[in-house]
């Protein structure tokens, strides 16, 4: 009997380790979900209002990190970097919509190809301007270190990102559900032609929504910056993830983007931890399942 004692202890320790592992991975998954939500909410809004598949959305995310990095390096202020990144990318998005995409309203394929041209352009321009060296943004000092709750250790910064994404989500929801602008956006998502007939300036609304979507992607990039950093190719790395979120959640739906982000964030995280070789398959499995059951996604409309 005496000999068996240590075995039980080990088994208990293994059990606790599994719980810790589970909690940590869940928190990591929520962190991924938070970033994905920030980025995909912009994509889904732009799709809802303009019916546009924006291949350049990953580029906005990439440009956000790079601009923030440059500004933060010059001014040593992460806040200034964040603000400027969001503003610059919003302006880029606005101009892109005004000068190029608007001419091709109701031609989804032409619009998609236009954004594809911009995606390739931005990708190479970023390489030309910033070079190919990867970097990470510095974590703000007041968010350094980790939270320790019992045996679970989790970085404060990641918790902060989850919180910020939650706040942004709440803000978007209030704007979308409780304001006149939100009502116009929802009307346009439902039926752009009728919305226009009711006196909504769909062209101006599209420009605004596209700019906000670009800003959200840039903000997501900056928020992920201290952990995921910036590197050439990050735009096309992210794009399929954002697409899966939007497909699972339903195009044009904020609620769908939230649920989709959590599903994809969790699955991606656990998939990478458990079967790293198959991480792409575990990621696309929910999308395939969703398409088989509900082609328009959880909250999408046909």
């Amino acid at each position, binding site marked *: 009997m005496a000999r068996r004692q240590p075995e039980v202890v080990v088994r208990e320790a293994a059990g606790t380790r599994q719980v810790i592992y589970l909690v940590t991975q869940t928190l990591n998954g929520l962190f991924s979900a938070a970033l994905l939500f920030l980025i995909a909410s912009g994509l889904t809004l732009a799709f809802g209002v303009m019916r546009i598949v924006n291949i350049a959305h990953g580029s906005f995310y990439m440009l956000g990190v790079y601009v923030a990095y440059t500004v933060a390096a010059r001014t040593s202020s992460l806040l200034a970097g964040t603000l400027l990144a969001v503003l610059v990318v919003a302006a880029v998005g606005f101009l892109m919509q005004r000068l190029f995409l608007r001419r091709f309203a109701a031609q989804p394929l032409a619009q998609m*190809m236009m954004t594809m041209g911009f995606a390739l352009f931005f990708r190479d321009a970023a390489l030309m301007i910033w070079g190919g060296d990867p970097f990470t943004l510095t974590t703000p000092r007041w968010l350094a270190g980790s939270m320790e709750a019992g045996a679970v250790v989790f970085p404060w910064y990641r918790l902060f990102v989850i919180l910020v994404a939650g706040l942004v989500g709440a803000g978007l929801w209030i704007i979308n559900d409780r304001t006149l602008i939100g009502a116009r956006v929802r009307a346009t998502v439902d039926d752009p032609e009728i919305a226009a007939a009711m006196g909504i300036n769909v062209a101006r609304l599209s420009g605004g929504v596209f700019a906000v979507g670009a800003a959200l992607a840039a903000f997501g990039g900056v928020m992920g910056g201290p952990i995921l950093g910036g590197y050439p190719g990050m735009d096309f790395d992210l794009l399929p993830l954002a697409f899966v979120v939007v497909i699972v959640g339903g195009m044009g739906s904020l609620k769908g983007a939230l649920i989709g982000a959590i599903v994809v964030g969790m699955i991606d995280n656990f998939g990478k931890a458990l079967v790293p070789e198959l991480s792409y398959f575990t990621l696309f499995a929910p999308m395939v399942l969703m398409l088989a059951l509900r082609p328009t996604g959880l909250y999408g409309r046909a």
Partner: protein
Amino acid sequence: MAERSATRAWRKPVIALLVAFLVFSPPFLSAYWVGLLTQVVILGILAMSLDLLIGYTGLPSLGHAGFFGVAAYGVGVLSTTYHAGVWTSIAGGFLAGTLVAALFGLIVSHVRDVYFLMITMALGMVLWGLSFRWIPVTGGDNGISGIPRLEGLIGLPASGPVPFYYVALLVFAACALLMALLVRSPFGLTLQGMREHEPRMRSLGFNTWLHGYLSYVGAGAFASIAGIMWAYYNGFVSPTYLDLTASSELFLMVTLGGPATLVGPVIGAGAIVILKNVMSAYTARWLLILGIVYIVTILWAPQGLWNLGQRRRA
């Protein structure tokens, strides 16, 4: 109608000139240019196969380079790791690409338009991720090198760029003929009917799901043939064959040349291949240029070069 045929009158002489150039010029060209022409005919097969989807069926696939890549990897793995014979490697590559298309087709064939676009792109990324991460089989980022030359294996007396070019040209001609027959067949006409108005075709009694599915698998099969030739042409395979940049370059070939013409995409492939190689002599900024070509094409020639001077289709 008269006006329309007048605007099309330049087409036949141009085709005759292009065919004559493809058939007779290589012996008089340098090895470098024969190499470029070989790329043009192989990627021409690939661009025509995508045209079956984009132009004729109205399915904008953004992951088409995936089947091309899978077939190339099939040849690479079989002929190096397993030292398989040339016909086994070719058959294996063809089957691999086509079977993946048959599998993916089950997923994508009941969605349309932007959904189709996003899903094919995501699936294309799955294949790219596999080529990049499944290192024991694919060699990861390094790819697979040492694929033997095709000419000797299939019993040609001579080897080198020109003999290989003529093999590629022969394959190209066979594929072009098959695809041209396909789009003129009742099957191809049904696809074009679906492109114009799918619900109407369905109410006329056509099984539009099956037609869409077969079109997707067929396009994947032709893309696989191009992938096999590409693997033998380069002697190696790498993940860049099937990444998103490859799929978008391919998409541009079809759009730039003119969808639903088969000839247009080949011209698009030629324009992109030659532009890419000429430009890379001066600058490393190929993607930047490609992006600009994309934007310019959509702004000024949205129907493609081969359709210039024609009325826009709504």
